[in-house]
């Protein structure tokens, strides 16, 4: 089984490194096929491991000693247990689809080969993140996915907005990573090890204050990666990257790493329910906050990005309240339908010559039926309608909130569910149905290549059926994770299910009804609420005016006054003194032997005088 572990882990990096050699060369189709095959092999290995892992057999290997200095010993170890194998399968499955899809999507791009190299490198980093058996390995993967995300958001680096967004994402994550590092230091300081099993075994012996701080710091790291408020702005801007990247990294896998961290560190968070409640509250807030921004946005990809944010909020609610397996379950189902939604959006973008404004589309159904059907499936799943995947996972989260007695959280999520249904179908209606606005604007849409559509079908299939695996998923993951006890009455649970479904269906119905008749009038754009939402609550503006501008002027002050006047002047003075001495002393080297002899005599006399009169203290 160890062989399968190594294959699953290292197949992507082999593809990435070999492909990197061709990065500068013109497009080679075999590069795409080669990396896709390797990722697929990795997926197969993960599936074999999924079959193998059960209650009393997990795969745990130590590749080598990595860092060992003094008492610090960190082996390069990997573990495949119930949690990591679920993540591995999800990551490799979505990656395989995205790789195949990208062969079609990046067809005309001149940096075709470079794209695949980065993409495979990302998969490798993500695999390290989920498979590591210690916090340091997780951190390496964590930074690795951050790096690859930077390279892929800024893939079209000649575009200013793309490179800006890449830097924004990288810097925001770095801020959060500081929190994560502090958490790791605290763990090491107090326990003396960073191995999961040792840490979780000993964490109960620690002072509760220390555990609280560890929990807070680790969550700060998770907030950055999973784009929770107030570090959320980078995710919407990250949509500058190619669409397959948005699907793989900024929807299905990387942004869920924060949730994975909380789930993995569940043993820590069960000790500190207060921090858990905070996580859940923040998650519920983000769920509504992001969904509200998605209601009015006109950018196809940004709407889906906000929806991702909102769904991440749901996952954090579940994880914060201790229902780790439900968070993981929603993570998995979300990965399927959200990447499907994104990849469908990529098809639409291609059809519309990279136009993103959904008000300029409309009536695309006749031109691209398969994509329309796939995206509708994904939207229904996202909205949480029975029997699609989103229904099972999202509904469970609402149940958890209700069960926990946090009715306010439940209500926020309930509203969020309605909003989710509305904006998903607003998108579907505006893009695929209604008046054919694009005809007037001179667009000539066409469906994507057949193999691209075929590549998406597994995701669509899973978006439909994944929910039915709930029972086995529950049994499988709770072998490792803390189980969550439902104390709710069966009848109340049923009422909740009906209520949630009703709000989702009414959201859909409202969207369909409204946009069938041409949507809202232009007047709505005058409303204060609309302006607040379309400007993303003025938060990007606040960051720009409140943080970036003062910081820029402060840096400018330091540059002009401190650096230029003090530091540079000092350095210049030293250099000037030496240079000036040289310039003056140059005249000694006149080439005249007689004067040189005189200098020599002068030197001897000085040395003699020193020898006679200077007596160093002994």
């Amino acid at each position, binding site marked *: 089984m160890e062989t399968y572990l190594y294959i699953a882990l290292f197949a992507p990096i082999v593809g990435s490194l070999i492909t990197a050699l061709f990065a500068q060369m013109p497009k080679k189709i075999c590069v795409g096929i080669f990396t896709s095959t390797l990722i697929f092999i990795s997926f197969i290995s993960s599936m074999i491991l999924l079959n193998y892992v059960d209650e009393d057999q997990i795969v745990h290997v130590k590749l080598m000693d990595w860092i060992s200095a003094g008492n610090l010993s960190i082996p390069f170890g990997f573990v495949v247990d119930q949690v990591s194998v679920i993540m591995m399968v999800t990551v490799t499955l979505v990656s395989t689809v995205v790789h195949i899809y990208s062969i079609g999507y990046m067809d005309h791009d001149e940096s075709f080969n470079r794209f695949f190299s980065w993409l495979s490198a990302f998969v490798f980093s993500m695999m390290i993140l989920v498979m590591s058996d210690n916090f340091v390995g997780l951190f390496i993967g964590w930074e690795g996915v951050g790096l690859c995300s930077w390279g892929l958001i800024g893939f079209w680096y000649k575009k200013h907005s793309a490179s800006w967004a890449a830097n924004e994402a990288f810097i925001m994550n770095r801020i959060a990573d500081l929190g994560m590092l502090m958490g790791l230091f605290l763990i090491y300081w107090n326990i003396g090890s960073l191995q999961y099993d040792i840490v979780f075994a000993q964490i109960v012996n620690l002072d509760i204050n220390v555990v609280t701080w560890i929990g807070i710091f680790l969550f700060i790291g998770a907030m950055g990666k999973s784009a929770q408020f107030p570090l959320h702005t980078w995710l919407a801007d990250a949509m500058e990257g190619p669409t397959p990247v948005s699907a793989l990294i900024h929807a299905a896998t990387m942004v869920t790493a924060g949730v994975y961290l909380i789930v993995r560190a569940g043993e820590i968070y069960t000790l500190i329910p207060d921090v858990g409640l905070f996580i859940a509250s923040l998650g519920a807030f983000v769920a509504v906050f992001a969904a509200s921004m998605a209601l009015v946005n006109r950018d196809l990809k940004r709407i889906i990005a906000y929806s991702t944010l909102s769904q991440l909020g749901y996952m954090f609610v579940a994880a914060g309240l201790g229902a780790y397996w439900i968070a993981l379950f929603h993570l998995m189902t979300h990965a399927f339908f959200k990447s499907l939604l994104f990849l469908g959006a990529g098809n639409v973008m291609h059809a519309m010559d990279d136009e993103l404004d959904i008000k300029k589309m409309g009536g695309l159904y006749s031109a691209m039926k398969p994509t329309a059907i796939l995206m509708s499936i994904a939207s229904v799943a996202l909205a949480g309608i029975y029997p699609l995947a989103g229904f099972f996972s999202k509904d469970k989260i609402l149940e958890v909130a209700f069960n926990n007695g946090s009715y306010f959280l439940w209500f926020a999520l309930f509203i969020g569910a309605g909003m989710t249904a509305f904006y998903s179908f607003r998108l579907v209606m505006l893009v695929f149905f209604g008046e054919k606005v694009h005809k007037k604007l001179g667009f000539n849409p066409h469906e994507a290549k057949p193999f691209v559509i075929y590549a998406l079908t597994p995701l669509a299939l899973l978006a439909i059926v994944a929910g039915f695996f709930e029972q086995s998923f529950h049994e499988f993951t709770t072998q490792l994770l803390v189980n969550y006890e439902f104390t709710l009455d069966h009848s109340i649970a049923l009422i909740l299910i009906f209520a949630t479904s009703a709000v989702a269906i009414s959201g859909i119905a409202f969207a369909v009804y409204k946009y069938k008749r041409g949507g809202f009038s232009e007047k709505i754009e005058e409303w204060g609420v609309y302006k607040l939402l379309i400007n993303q609550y003025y938060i990007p503006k606040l960051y720009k005016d409140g943080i970036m501008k003062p910081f820029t002027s402060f840096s400018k002050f330091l540059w002009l006054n401190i650096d230029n006047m003090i530091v540079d002047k000092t350095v210049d003075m030293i250099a000037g003194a030496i240079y000036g001495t040289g310039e003056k002393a140059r005249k000694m*080297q*006149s*080439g*005249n*032997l*007689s004067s040189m*002899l*005189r200098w020599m*005599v002068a030197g001897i006399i000085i040395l003699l005088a020193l020898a006679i009169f200077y007596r160093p203290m002994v």
Partner: protein
Amino acid sequence: MIGLTHYLVLSAILFAIGLVGVMKRKNLLMLFFSTEILLNAVNIGFVAIGHYYGDLSGQMFAFFIIAVAASEIAVGLGLLVLWYKKTGSTDLDSLSMMKG
């Protein structure tokens, strides 16, 4: 009575004369003379002090210096003759080929 001091004073005077000669003279031949004076001033000092302490090493060293000086002059004069044949001058200031 002539003592150690006298010899040392003589040595110092000769050394000073040699030093001035090295600094002042422009003729290469005169420079050789001056260096000879310098070396012999030192020799006088060595011999005088060696005699004063009853130690033969000073005088032995003086012989060494005489031998070295002789070989130096032999080589130096050879070079000087060549230089004279080449440039027709023994002026020190004409030796400036190495100037950067």
